């Protein structure tokens, strides 16, 4: 065999999307690539995208599942816009995703699945691999299934099972392409299939076959290298948003000394928070899978009254069901945290797709004047700090806190610097044990929080409930002045928290032509677009809000320092509505409602439209 001369090209950042049928194991393939990339030391961001159906009809466009990752030697904020590499395991995956591939980008195809029937299902009249459709791309067309079959012919497995290892072939090939080692994935496979060594062996062989295919064949003349990114010193791991929420709760529980109670009902895309917490019982976590969304939050209210750190998580439809009970938590002034992992709505909407359309619901979606604290996490790793902070505020101020995340950051992942849990903000409570002068609705403290008198404490027997209570004594009161006072007090309890949160410091400059104002999971795309504009000499800055109720004290004055305020949101302009109502400033709303996150490019282009090229 003659020696093959290969070039290794150094790249700054790369975006890859693995796409195939729902049953092709694309999520697992992508996760493996991400974990390995994280360990290698690149910065990365991922975006899993899968259908709502567990198994949509095989080969159909509706059944395509994909996993995108951008990795880089630079600090990056998004999973990337255009693709450098698309792995298309079947014609449907090619059809759905090829429009996102860069011109001259690479498309890796599993030829075995480009059968007449699959082509028809994807709506192709002729095979795009052969008819010139892909002329502008670098195509690597491999019959992965056949090669995997050869590699595993001495293993006693059905051809169907062998074919299912093809995803590992694709992964092996991409590993070779980016100069990665496959040891970690071999370990992972052996562990995952420890009960079925034949399947484990087939997958390992498929992985190695894919790697060797790249190594041996001349079809690929270049492999690539993306250097390690520069990170702050520390120990890192890759983390998804839902896991980071669970970690934040656990840490708040440990740091406060309060046992964690989670009451909830399974709902996409929030269920993973329940899954994670239910596996941490050795942290004294109590998870209660309730009969419905209402019982989920109501049980948390009961647990909060009984003295636990009580939390629940849900998504839009569940949030709607919980609203009456959240009002109960408001009037009884009990500390609970409600996570809303937002998804496309209304109604069942787009269960597996992302959106930011529940902000106004979180703000005002309850009957009566029922203000809650509203916060938002802005990236997968940020979910840790956000959920910890939500707990801190809830128990310090005796108030329900709504934490908004979304499907995009809940399932996406990025590197997370493992924190020193002792260095986090201290968590204090209003817990009381002495009966001298005790009044259950005593609001005389600086933070207006009423005392937390936990059942089991002698001498502090008292009653709470949904009827309006007299300030101080907590007796039922229909007194007109008292009601007015208590409504105002509950608003003041939210407002006073503004003193406890940091003022905003704009990214970029403190004044200029345009301020991009955002909240939640859009941070990565907004920051990247602002960076691109600034690199092109534009006077553009960025504020990304963590706290939505109360808003930071200095936000109003900052807004006045920019000629224009652009508010990109994955909704019809909900933050824009709040900002206009509160500060009477003109804002430009930039909406996107496609079940997908913003791309950097579309935000950048909008910035340029607003301030001129």
């Amino acid at each position, binding site marked *: 065999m003659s020696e093959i001369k290969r070039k290794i090209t150094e790249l700054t950042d790369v975006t890859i999307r693995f796409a195939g049928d729902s049953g092709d194991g694309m999520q697992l393939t992508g996760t493996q690539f991400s974990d390995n990339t994280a360990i290698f030391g690149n910065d990365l961001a991922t975006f899993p995208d899968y259908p709502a159906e567990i198994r949509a009809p095989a080969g159909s466009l509706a059944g395509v599942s994909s996993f995108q990752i951008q990795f880089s030697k630079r600090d990056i904020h998004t999973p990337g816009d255009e693709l450098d590499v698309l792995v298309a395991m079947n014609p449907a995956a090619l059809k759905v995703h090829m429009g996102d591939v860069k011109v001259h980008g690479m498309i890796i195809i599993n030829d075995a699945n480009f059968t007449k029937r699959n082509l028809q299902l994807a709506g192709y009249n002729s095979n795009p691999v052969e008819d010139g459709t892909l002329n502008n791309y670098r195509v690597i067309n491999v019959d992965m299934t056949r090669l995997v079959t050869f590699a595993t012919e001495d293993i006693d497995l059905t051809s169907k099972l062998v074919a299912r290892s093809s995803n590992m072939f694709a992964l092996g090939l991409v590993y070779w392409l980016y100069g990665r080692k496959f040891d970690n994935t071999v370990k992972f496979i052996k562990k995952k299939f420890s009960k079925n060594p034949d399947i484990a062996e087939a997958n390992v062989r498929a992985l190695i076959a894919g790697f060797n295919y790249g190594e041996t064949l001349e079809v690929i003349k270049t492999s690539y290298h993306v250097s390690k990114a520069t990170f702050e010193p520390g120990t890192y791991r890759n983390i998804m948003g839902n896991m980071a929420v669970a970690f934040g709760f656990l840490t708040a529980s440990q740091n406060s000394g309060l046992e964690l*109670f989670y009451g909830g009902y399974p709902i996409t895309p929030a269920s993973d928070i329940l899954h994670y917490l239910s596996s*941490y019982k050795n942290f004294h976590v109590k998870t209660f899978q*309730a009969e419905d969304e209402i019982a989920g939050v*109501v049980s948390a209210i009961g647990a909060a009254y009984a003295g636990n750190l009580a939390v629940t998580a849900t998504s839009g439809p569940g949030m709607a069901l919980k609203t009456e009970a959240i009002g109960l938590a408001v009037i009884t002034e009990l500390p609970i945290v409600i996570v809303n992992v937002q998804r496309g709505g209304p109604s069942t909407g787009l269960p597996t797709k992302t959106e930011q359309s529940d902000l106004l619901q979180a703000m005002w979606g309850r009957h009566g004047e029922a203000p809650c604290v509203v916060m938002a996490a802005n990236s997968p790793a940020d979910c840790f700090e956000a959920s910890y902070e939500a707990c801190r505020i809830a128990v310090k101020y005796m108030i329900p806190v709504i934490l908004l995340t979304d499907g995009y950051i809940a399932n996406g992942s990025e590197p997370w610097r493992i924190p020193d849990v002792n260095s986090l903000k201290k968590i204090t409570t209003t817990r009381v044990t002495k009966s001298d002068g005790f009044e259950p609705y005593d609001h005389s403290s600086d933070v207006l929080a009423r005392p937390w008198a936990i*059942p089991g404490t002698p001498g502090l027997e008292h009653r709470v409930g949904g009827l309006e209570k007299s300030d101080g004594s907590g007796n039922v009161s229909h007194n007109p002045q008292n009601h007015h006072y208590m409504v105002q007090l509950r608003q003041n309890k939210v407002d006073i928290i503004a003193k406890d949160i940091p003022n905003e410091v704009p990214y970029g400059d403190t004044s200029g032509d345009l301020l991009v104002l955002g909240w939640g999971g859009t941070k990565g795309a907004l920051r990247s677009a602002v960076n691109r504009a600034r690199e092109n000499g534009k006077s553009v800055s960025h504020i990304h809000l963590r706290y939505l109720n109360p808003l930071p004290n200095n936000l109003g004055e900052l807004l006045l320092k920019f000629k224009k305020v652009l508010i990109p949101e994955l909704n019809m302009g909900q933050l824009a509505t709040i900002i206009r109502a509160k500060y009477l400033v003109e804002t430009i709303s930039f909406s996107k409602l496609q079940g997908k996150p913003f791309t950097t490019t579309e935000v950048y282009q909008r910035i340029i439209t607003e301030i001129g090229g």
Partner: protein
Amino acid sequence: MIDVSTQTAPLTRKDFVSDQEVRWCPGCGDYAILAQVQKILPSLGIPKENILFISGIGCSSRFPYYMNTYGFHSIHGRASALASGAKIANPNLSVWVVTGDGDSMSIGGNHFIHVLRRNIDLNILMFNNRIYGLTKGQYSPTSELGKITKSTPMGSLDYPFNPPALALGAGGTFIARAIDRDQHASSEILQRAASHKGTSFVEYYQNCLIFNDGAFASLTEKDSKDDTVLHLVHQQPMVFGKENNKGLRLVGSQFEIIELGSEFGINDVLVHDENNKNLAILLSELTYNPVLPTPVGIFYVKNTSTYENMVTEQIEQAIKIKGEGDLNSLFNSGGTWVVE
């Protein structure tokens, strides 16, 4: 978790009376139930601070305000869900749920069946007056078919729930019926309910003087009650009547009344067994029977693990296997890398 402190001075009924004025309508059956509960609580030997009363919405649900214990007046239908959270959070508490037929059979029906199947150690007192009182007189899910009310001027069209049968179907482990005006029987039922480990369900027939007066009159009036009420006593024959001269026997799966005398003796009468679920199901079907007597007392008891105990056991088991949770080792599990 909070330790149960040992009681020093014995408590009395007065210790459980709050300083709030009771505001039910004069003559309401709720007064009698409140008095019965306040009377039996001292005998349980539970420190006052470990007792928690939780209610939903309705006339009955004002109950916690009148008890000098911990209390939570929650929202319509949700009392047992709220109580579940409180009990799981602190299993040392003695948690009572006070609810009504609308609160637990209608808007809270889902929570009601699920709390029963989970067997969380709660004592549920359901005041059944077969009417909506607080909203001023609409028919309820336990109102008889054809009930004329404000919302059903031509008579209600839905068949009523049979609460003990529903509770048995849901997997309840303690099912009983009491009557507001029968203090003697009620006290014993309440004590048994309190000591049962698991969800105790007590259906309280309660008279609403304003909107459904006399709903249970035949079971409470002196001249009729002996013939209409069957007091269930474990391992005792099912006899009733003024002279205890009537009994029930089973023919196939049907009950039949027998007169004790020349033809039938006490040995022919069916003996109650509170641990026999099949029997409890048959007895529950007497609820709306116009001919046979209405059972009062404990229908069914089953001793089995409570939900919250199993929660505790799983936590202990997890600690045994994995050790006490350590954030550092959790965060550092899986793939990590160090940046110098």
